[in-house]
């Protein structure tokens, strides 16, 4: 397993956000984590990144327990995050944002290659590279957040609601890019409220409900599950 989360508990003060969840992400796959607003999806990703500390339980990445690793070291281990709400640096240029993504890479040669790859995948970012990121549209900012995360050449990409707030056409585009990124060898843990799209790209999926895993299985099966259809696919 590339990532194994075991019996993870996380609280914010008195609020228990995760109540002992366990799940696995197999190398090379797209794994979807779906659930309603407030279910604990972002908390899960933020705990993996080290931004939030687990109360108990373990997070194992490539056989190493990473629970206590400080967040700035996580990206160097090969885990990169596309945060909820994109969180691009609006007062930095597109190019500077991408450079920040490669901050942990020592050599500038590697950073150059990463940049060329990102520009190939997102030609629009190249056209706008000198523009302040704050002047980009929502879809472009999402692409920048994705490009920025790819700059470190992650083995595991964590994505928190990449389709949030985007027009349907852009959502399609973002998901086809997610598929491409996966095809070129990057494992993806995808958090979505848009269960329909998430299940269409994922190999397996977990449903999170108020801090607990309610269901799990192959994505195709989940999409046929009557309960999932009723609660998350709006049928």
């Amino acid at each position, binding site marked *: 397993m590339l990532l194994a989360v075991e019996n993870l508990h996380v609280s914010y003060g008195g609020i228990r956000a995760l109540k002992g969840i366990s799940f696995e992400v197999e190398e090379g796959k797209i794994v979807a984590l779906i659930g309603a607003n407030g279910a604990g999806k972002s908390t899960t990703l933020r705990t993996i*990144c*080290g*931004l939030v500390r687990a109360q108990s339980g373990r997070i194992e990445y490539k056989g190493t327990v990473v629970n206590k690793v*400080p*967040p*700035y*070291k*996580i*990206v*160097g281990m090969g885990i*990169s*995050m596309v*945060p909820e*709400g994109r*969180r691009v*640096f*609006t*007062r*930095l240029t597109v190019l*500077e944002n991408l*450079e*920040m*993504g490669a*901050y*942990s890479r020592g050599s500038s040669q590697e950073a150059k290659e990463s940049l060329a790859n990102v520009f190939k995948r997102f030609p629009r970012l190249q056209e706008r590279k000198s523009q302040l990121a704050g002047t980009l549209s929502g879809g472009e900012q999402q692409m920048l957040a994705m490009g*920025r995360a790819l700059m*470190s050449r992650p083995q595991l990409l964590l994505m928190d609601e990449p389709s949030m707030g985007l027009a349907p056409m852009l959502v399609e585009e973002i998901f086809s890019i997610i598929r491409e990124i996966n095809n070129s060898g990057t494992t993806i843990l995808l958090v979505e409220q848009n269960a329909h799209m998430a299940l269409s790209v994922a190999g397996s999926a977990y449903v999170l409900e108020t801090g607990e895993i309610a269901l799990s299985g192959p994505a195709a099966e989940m999409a046929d599950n009557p309960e999932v259809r009723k609660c998350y696919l709006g049928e």
Partner: protein
Amino acid sequence: MFFQQLVNGVTLGATYALIALGYTMVYGIIQLINFAHGEVYMIGAFVGLIMVAVYKVNFFIALLAAMAVCIPLAVLIERVAYRPLRNSTRLAPLISALGVSIFLQTLVTLIKGDPNPLGFPHVIQDTVYALGPVKFSLIQVVILIVASLLMVFLEITVKYTKIGKAMRATSEDYETANLMGINVNHVVSFTFAAGAALAAAGGVLVGMYFNSINPFMGVTVGLKSFCAAVVGGIGSIPGAMLGGLLLGIAEVFGVAAGFDTYKEAISFGLLIIILLFRPTGLLGHPIQRKV
């Protein structure tokens, strides 16, 4: 007359700007008003004086020595007095900063033996240049050149170097900067170091300009420079430069207009007026809520 006052105002403003930069950069990164910054400036002035009076070095060596002392001092202050309080209430590091400020004032008074002002030896000649009716003393020229060079150097660092970009990223979004692999603690230390270098230079320059330094000189100048940072828009580097110049000019013109007794009130008055019209300062970023 007008241009003469302008020259005097810009000179004074340049020193406020140097100090204001430290407040604004630190605030931009960790949202702390570093009340001990004025004392770093004061210690810079004392180190400069000691170098010049005791070791008889020239002005530039004195300037570098002041920086060499103030940089580690500021980094140490952050490490000891602020960092352990990073995750506590916002009031805690503020109170800690006040404590450091009082501690340093007292420490210097103790070492010096009394709180009285000391004169600064004339390391720079009293040459005066005339440009039409406007007179520049050599020391004003030195202040303007040194302050400009330091600010250009800062601007280049922040704009083009890796650590400078990391600084800007961290000041906009601390958490996401972490996700990029930026060790935010290094950025914070670097920010304190940069602010201290500028303040140390400011201390030596002001000491020479007014020919008088004392252990409490950081209080008023610190407050005024902090006003300058807020007037320009706290967190904004060009804002601190602009705010410093404006305050310096306002003060000199205010005094020339006969409001000598109200000299110290001018900065605060200007602060209030500008904040009434622009709550985020002249060049401040609109208030963003960080999640």
